[in-house]
């Protein structure tokens, strides 16, 4: 049901925007082209930031430093009855969207999408976004260098999201 609705969203959106444009006598094609042209500038300012972030994050991930962190924190997680399997995902979700999605894929394969771990992973992935990526992209595109408290605020929002995901899945989907 929901996936059918979401299949209609994009086509309907396009129809409404273009249809309304014609109704308001906008030169829809010309306006479309001039809008699409703006993407060149955006892509050129974005690329160096994206490259830098991917470079830094990948080197860090390849060193497996996070594995040592997992081992250190494992006792605390056992105490809180949070499955250790979900842990890499929790740490990676704010850093790299594609890595956390890859981990979610693995969780589905190993435990199944309807297992507790599978559900918890789904909710974590679905309820937060990749803070580092958004920060790099959005601030990079307009040349912001001093980000002030934005990283802290973004990460706190992620932590709140992950903690509430754990509590909610425990309460409603366990």
């Amino acid at each position, binding site marked *: 049901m929901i996936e059918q609705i979401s299949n209609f969203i994009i086509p309907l959106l396009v129809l409404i925007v273009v249809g309304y444009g014609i109704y*308001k006598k906008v030169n829809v094609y010309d306006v479309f082209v001039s809008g699409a042209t703006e993407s060149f500038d955006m892509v050129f300012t974005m690329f160096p930031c994206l490259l830098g972030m*991917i470079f830094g994050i990948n080197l*860090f991930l390849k060193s497996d430093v996070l594995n040592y962190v997992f081992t250190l924190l494992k006792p605390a997680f056992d105490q809180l009855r949070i499955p250790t399997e979900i842990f890499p995902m929790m740490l990676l979700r704010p850093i790299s969207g594609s890595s956390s999605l890859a981990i979610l894929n693995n969780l589905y394969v190993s435990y199944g999408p309807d297992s507790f771990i599978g559900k918890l992973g789904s909710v974590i992935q679905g309820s937060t976004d990749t803070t580092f990526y958004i920060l790099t992209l959005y601030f990079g595109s307009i040349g912001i260098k001093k980000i002030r408290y934005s990283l802290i605020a973004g990460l706190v929002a992620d932590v709140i999201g992950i903690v509430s995901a754990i509590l909610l899945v425990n309460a409603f989907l366990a």
Partner: protein
Amino acid sequence: MVNKIWGFFIVVGVIVCILTGKVDVLNNEILESTKSSLDMIIKIFPVMALWLGIMNIATESGLLNKLSNALFPILKKIFPEIPAGHESLSLIASNITANMFGLGNAATPFGLKAMKSLQELNDKKDTASRSMITFLVLNTSGVTIIPTTIISLRMMYGSKNPTEIVFACILATLISTIGGLIVDQILAKRR
């Protein structure tokens, strides 16, 4: 802050890799990251161009203005520093709307344009303004109502009830958005 974190990632990554005897992995990864960033930008580029074009029609026809007028009472509270009727409000509104439906690809160009528009209001061009940070928090907490990607992934792996997680996702995203906004307000006032 980003400078320190980026530096930390690289220094720690390289040193640990060398100490654990993974120099090959390191060499490979240094080359690989250039490739994956190019792949990423090539994937984003046409999608962005398309949505920027579509969005331009919505701007010219006044559709975006209608949307932002509808959301204005809420946005005014969240973004007290943006003057009424400023273009950035309608862009923020469209970014949030696209995010709600899980349309990340459409949300990104709206978000980038919104940032550009917020930059016009910014006095110090190299420093993030309060409104920019609030907008960023709204995006990182991921205001999603229909998590399209997750649902399709769950279907792919044979879930009996792929949409079962939707309710929990909405609640979790709501809590993290509200929590994030509160933290943002506190931090903004402190500095």
